[in-house]
């Protein structure tokens, strides 16, 4: 009888231990969710207060951002948003063709040996800190651009598009390459058996099949371009005026937050307005990531063999 009870308690003890370990892990895994909610809540609480003194219409549609004006401070973000959109668009125009072509080369054309060497090198580009790329932009690229186009300063939307394009490139290459590599071998064999050249196989079979995955890689790159801070802070020229061309200096939303947040009084309207910009950025990137997530999920489900 004693022996029987001892066994029961031992297995109970074991069960309790197993159960509590599981509870411990599940409790910790909630951290990620709490952080996401926390980001939204803390940005929202502070950011929303900005609208007690400035109207949403002025905030979203006004193009004059001048919080330290002596007479009437202005909190219009349209110029900043335009700056962000210009850099994002410009960087994607550079990174999309280069990225997709490199992905096709690595996955379909390059010999395994070349791929083995080039892939880590591309990953290395992703690990260069953005502040270093910004430094290259200031010291090397912007004088070059100013010289080529005969501008007084090379710190403008065009130069920052190139720098951000370089930063986005590895994201587009590595995800597109993954998608292409994951396509079933049968696609390639069937296409070649019908007499297609390898280029026709890539163009007519592989690229259409990988299209949604490639789009998702572009969306993720877009998210990175929108959120990029240091490089644009250093290279974009920091002008608050509404930009008219790609050769105008601009100030994207991220750069504006990073420049001004150190100088503002905590709790002032200016401080709250910067949080409101942060909230807009958060919502923008959240939507972009959410949509690309759905696209990737579909792509993965499409060709399960």
């Amino acid at each position: 009888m004693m022996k029987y009870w001892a066994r029961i308690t031992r297995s109970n003890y074991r069960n309790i231990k197993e159960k509590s370990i599981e509870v411990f892990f599940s409790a910790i895994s909630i951290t990620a969710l709490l952080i996401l909610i926390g980001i939204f809540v803390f940005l929202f609480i502070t950011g929303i207060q900005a609208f007690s003194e400035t109207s949403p219409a002025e905030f979203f549609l006004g193009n004059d951002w001048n919080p330290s004006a002596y007479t009437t401070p202005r909190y219009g973000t349209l110029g900043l948003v335009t700056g962000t959109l210009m850099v994002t668009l410009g960087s994607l125009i550079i990174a999309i063709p280069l990225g997709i072509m490199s992905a096709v080369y690595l996955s379909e054309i390059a010999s395994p040996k070349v791929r083995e060497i080039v892939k880590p090198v591309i990953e290395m580009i992703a690990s260069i800190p953005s502040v270093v790329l910004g430094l290259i932009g200031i010291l090397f690229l912007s004088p070059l651009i100013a010289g080529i186009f005969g501008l007084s300063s090379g710190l403008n939307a065009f130069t920052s598009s190139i720098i951000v394009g370089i930063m986005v490139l590895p994201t587009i290459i590595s995800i597109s390459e993954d998608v292409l590599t994951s396509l079933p071998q049968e696609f390639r064999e069937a296409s070649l058996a019908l007499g297609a050249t390898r280029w026709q196989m890539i163009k007519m079979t592989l690229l259409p099949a990988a299209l949604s995955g490639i789009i998702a890689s572009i969306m993720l790159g877009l998210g990175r371009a929108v959120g990029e801070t240091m490089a644009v802070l250093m290279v974009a020229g920091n002008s608050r005026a509404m930009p008219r061309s790609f050769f105008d200096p601009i100030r994207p939303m991220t750069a504006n937050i990073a420049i001004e947040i150190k100088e503002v009084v905590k709790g002032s309207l200016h401080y709250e307005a910067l949080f409101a910009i942060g909230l807009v950025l958060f919502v923008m990137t959240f939507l972009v990531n959410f949509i690309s997530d759905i696209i990737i999920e579909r792509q993965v489900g499409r060709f399960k063999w």
Partner: protein
Amino acid sequence: MVNDHLKQEIYFMSFRLATFLSVAILLLILVYVFKEGVGVIDMKFLTSMWSHRDITSGGIFPAIMGTVFLALGVSIISIPTGICTAIYLNEYAKDTLLTRIIKLAVRNLAGVPSVVYGLFGLSLFVVFLKLGTSLFAASLTLGCMTLPWIITTSEEALKAVPVSFREGSYALGATKWQTIKAVVLPHSLGGILTGSILGISRAMGETAPIIMVGATFFMGYLPNSPFDKFMALPYHLFILATQHSSPHAREYALGTALVLITLVFILNSGVFAIRYTLRRKKEW
């Protein structure tokens, strides 16, 4: 037919060029930073305190140590949390609504701009929890930022352990936790380690968040508690490049950039070495 092959050659050649252009960009950056920055690097530059008045008489020692302390702080915070989350998601979690929401949160956190993490850290850690602008607040902020990367790569590593390994362990009478501890973790440790190192090396180069939560340009001493401010390499080179009036600021910024890139690349090449040896060892 000849035409088709010619076309193919032209396309393939342009693809090859695109790839080599991408590689060339990296090499160009490295060569430029090395060539322009290596001149200022000597023992004094690496090991002496920063001198504000005459920058040529001081070094970047406190900035190097600040970045190292920060990397350690971030590791302590995000690596254990990330690994535990990955274990839960991959080993325990059933496909419930909560699990899906957590996975969604992890993927979305990875896409939140670093400057937004900075605002979050400023309002939660610095102001609300009253930690002040400090090494501790910066470690927590960057810890939140690296967490999703570490979770994602650890999950991949756990997934790569074949199910048959777990079944073998269960068949021998092991419990779930015993299986994880004795079978799953040892076999995924390499992947978890490489993912974590990559995450930390990216955090070391981050600048925007630490501007807001604790980095400072000038400090005559090393931080002597987690509640001190600190100097950091990326912020240091940012100020040198944009706001410093000394005629030597340019080469000192490049020298600092070279030190930062070298630190990051040392960590990265460690990762490649681990990956390479692991691939040779795995035979399943």
